[in-house]
């Protein structure tokens, strides 16, 4: 099952250790992680459900621009903060 992990900079605000989920897309994987860590949602997404401007998502080491791409069984999703945000 895909594995989702979050930048250490988020752990300070919301404890969110890496988790395995069964989402079929990046979006579903994140939603399942937010189910485990409900407070995390507002840190990663804005009030309309869009990825925050200075938050970036990598899948297997590659930055992704959308969250609807399908995920494979062994894919690694990593949520980071963009350096563009300072």
């Amino acid at each position: 099952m895909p594995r989702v992990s979050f930048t250490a900079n988020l752990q300070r605000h919301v404890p969110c250790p890496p988790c395995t989920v069964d989402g079929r897309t990046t979006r579903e994987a994140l939603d399942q992680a937010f189910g485990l860590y409900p407070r995390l949602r507002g840190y990663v997404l804005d009030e309309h459900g869009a990825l925050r401007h200075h938050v970036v998502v990598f899948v297997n080491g590659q930055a992704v621009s959308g969250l609807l791409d399908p995920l494979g069984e062994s894919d690694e999703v990593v949520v980071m903060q963009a350096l563009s945000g300072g």
Partner: protein
Amino acid sequence: MSDLLLVSTRKGLFSVKRTANGRWAVADVAFLGDNVTLALADPRDGRRYAALDHGHFGAKLHRSADGGASWEEVGVPAYPEPPEGHVETDPFGRPIPWKLQRIWSLEPGHGTQPGVLWAGTLPGGLFRSGDHGASWSLVRSLWDRPERRAWMGGGTDVPGIHSICVDPRDGARVTVAVSCGGVWRTEDGGATWACRAQGMRAAYMPPERAYDPNVQDPHRVVQCPARPDVFWSQHHNGVFRSLDDCASWEELAEVPVSGFGFAVAVHPSDPATAWLVPGVDDQRRIPVDAKVVVLRTRDGGRSFQTLRKGLPQKHAYDLVFRHALAVDSTGERLAFGSTTGSLWVTEDGGDAWMTVAEHLPPVYAVQFG
């Protein structure tokens, strides 16, 4: 009389307390390393609130029910989705997303409305909570006013509500001030609104628009608790006062040092007494002659004293933001903090100032607890 100051800074929320020997000192810090943009000590129930801006991770609100010993994250004002296909732009065509950027003002509701809080935000939405900040609702009656679309950013890309005054006579009467969008008043708890900035002058607009109430940039508006018909405003290009409940505003012509600044405080029981912290002008935003001073009037703005005792008078480049000057319930104690991390307190209405700190992070807001 208050012995506690909440000092919101770029790197944490500092509690500053008066000690037995009459000195003020940092007692503790919460959210160390985080950007605390505002704090509120609710006089009705003792709860404390801290507004944080995590940058990458958005604006948050925390609440403490035990005097700051522990904090819990509560709800945050959230904008609704705009209507399908709706693209909002400012008067210059730049987009204004319907998304919370910052909590820019936070005030308790009337004493008869326990749990009610008001929050002003960037990009210009006013929010109300009825449950101590657990949940928030956008005040659509103000957001949906057509004039709101003409508001402009002032120091930020988008407009924002930075001042909220709840009338002590009637909690349904609320006045808010907008940079840049004038002064707005509801008399019915937020059902309807009217712009109340007649008399304000905007030097940064073409002459034919200078007195347009909806373009005014009142950097800060405060209301005298004991004489609620009296309001003071440090405006972008001058100091204004209203004696008639914001029906009209008068520009004070005799302000020494500089008419530019951000902060203003009014005496809690004497509407003729107010304090300002002037800056050189909007181009440079430093103290005049690199000397930190406070202006005080005791006669409604006809004359001002320039207060310097205890304040740095050489190579001082402290700027004082709009929420960083506070007065306590006696009118004798005031405090202000600066962008360069200094904090000063007076216990005699400003005649003499004590330096409390010189190396804090940049100070955004100061409030007596």
